[in-house]
């Protein structure tokens, strides 16, 4: 897994490549929590390069979402690929988060 973060105005865009599984989820969660702790309130997760996510990764997302919610922040998702999209669907994450086809669309949503 590779994470890179950049700022677009007040939005933190987090791009994740590779696999978020039980081995890599702790690092993913630490990255997200650090942003929230630093005061970032809007996160766009660009999953264009993400090939695989397991429940460990969804758990990290929920943990971060709860932290953001407590501060009136939010999380959006962009560019989910086939297998990750299906995992989001069976987890009904679409009812919790805005999920956009592209990063640009997510940034326009804010």
């Amino acid at each position, binding site marked *: 897994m590779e994470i890179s973060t950049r700022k677009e105005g007040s939005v933190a865009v987090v791009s994740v490549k590779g696999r978020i*599984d*039980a*081995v890599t989820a702790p690092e993913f969660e630490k990255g997200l929590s650090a942003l929230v702790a630093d005061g970032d309130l809007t996160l766009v997760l660009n999953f264009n390069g993400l090939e*695989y996510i*397991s*429940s*460990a990764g*969804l*758990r990290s997302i*929920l*943990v971060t*979402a*709860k932290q953001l*919610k407590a501060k009136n922040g939010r999380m959006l998702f962009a560019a989910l690929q*086939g*297998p990750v999209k*299906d*995992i989001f*669907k*069976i*987890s*009904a994450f679409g*009812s*919790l988060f805005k999920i956009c086809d592209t990063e640009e669309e997510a940034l326009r949503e804010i």
Partner: protein
Amino acid sequence: MGNLSEEIRVPAEMGYLRELLAFVASCAERSGFGQTRLREIELVMEEILVNIFNYAYPDRKGDVGIACRSADDGKLLVEITDQGIPFDILSLNDPDLQAGIEERNIGGLGVFFVKQLIRDIRYRRESGRNILTLTIDPTPAVL
């Protein structure tokens, strides 16, 4: 399991996850499963194994075993065995997918995925072991 099955047994620790996933993947490939179903099986196996690593042996170290065997109709039989505390995956309720972010439980998705992706799951406790048997259809479920 039958004579010409494949088996692996390793310590129930996260460092062995990738090796165990590779083992099951090569069993499923040998049974002729397609890429989509292989990905689903990988997810299912990660969820089951990581739970065993995390929960089966709360106060000691232990092993986990996997046995694979081809079954009728191109199906693959996968049997996961541990000597941890008794746990029946089928006894858990599904998570509440309607709940909002604040109410939503952060756990419970792993077992839910397993049940969504594999129709035929059997559990038994036998001489101190949890034995979980998946009879895996080659047809993809959702992924």
